């Protein structure tokens, strides 16, 4: 074996070893790296093995027609189209918070199943367009499932 071949084999060895370890790590990280849990991770038949009596983050879509503003208090329902969880929040609402948009709330679940959020973050999706396009899309009936909510 020449020196160069030896080097190539050494590098292949190191790279595959690391790749296998990384693949295993990634596989294992699946549940632990989740930034937020969706309602069906928390309740229902497919609920996951997570600690529910301490703060966690709940994510999903703000269900249409469920946002109620009562003074400073905001109430709405987060859904992943399988399960729903009602959320109560008091504080600064991010500019992008809208019905039908993605949202991530951090807080705790109380005994009655109400999620008491201490922070509220809006999740932006991958669609970017000027208002006129959004309006036109809305009028045409939103082709690829996008329903821009700015112009009802």
């Amino acid at each position, binding site marked *: 074996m020449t*020196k160069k071949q030896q*080097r190539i084999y*050494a*590098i292949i*060895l*190191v790279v595959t*070893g*690391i790749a*296998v*370890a990384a693949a*295993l*790590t990634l*596989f*294992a*990280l699946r*549940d*632990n*790296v989740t930034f937020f849990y969706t309602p069906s991770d928390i309740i229902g038949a497919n609920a996951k*093995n*997570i*600690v529910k*009596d*301490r703060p966690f983050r709940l994510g999903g879509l703000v269900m249409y027609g469920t946002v109620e503003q009562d003074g400073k208090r905001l109430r709405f329902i987060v859904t992943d189209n399988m399960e729903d969880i009602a959320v109560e929040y008091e504080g600064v609402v991010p500019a992008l918070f809208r019905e039908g948009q993605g949202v991530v709330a951090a807080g705790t679940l109380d005994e009655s199943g109400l999620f008491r959020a201490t922070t509220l973050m809006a999740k932006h999706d991958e669609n970017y367009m000027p208002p006129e396009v959004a309006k036109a899309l809305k009028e045409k009936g939103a082709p690829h499932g996008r329903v821009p909510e700015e112009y009802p």
Partner: protein
Amino acid sequence: MSLFADTFRRDIRLGLRRKGQILMAPVFFMMVSVLFPLAMGPDPVVLKLAGPGLLAVAALLAALLPLDTLFRDDDADGTIDLLLLSPAPLSLYVAGKTAAYWVLTSLPLLAVAPLMMIVLDMPLRMAGITLCALFPVTFLLNLAGQTGAALALGTRTGSILLALLLIPFYIPILIFGASAIDLARNGLDAGMPLFLLWALLAVALPAAPLATAAILKGLNE
């Protein structure tokens, strides 16, 4: 195989002669674990939340601390150069060193871990599962650490450089270890992260010494 056993025996003997150095890692581990409750207050709610993570971070820092000395003496006195010239597989030497290093620095750490669990307000019936997580965690930290130590061999800035190199690779180990202890702490099934820690160890145990040997060889060519 005798290269593994010889290296292991020699390093254990050398290590036992320098008692101060062996005690450094567990003492550091204890100090870090004690500083957090002192700084955050002994509120059980806070400790329940933070305890498992703190234990994992303390183990990580303790594993990092004496790492830069791993190959230093053998490099300085020419042992590594001689081994490179000899036909004996360098990976066995690396494996022997890692095993000895684990026995000298991590085993005492595991021994004091139950004590630290008391400090962090964790029930002692969790000791078994905590050790079950800390064992692969410390071993994985050492295996990744030896690769880093080989890369940084011959530098002056030792420890800080090593921390910089290794933190990216320590992060997944830390996430698992902490989550296993955390799930157990909250009375949930910790099987998944534990299983994966051990699976990771099964891969890293043969792969890391080979990689480290390749790096030592490559750097000294």
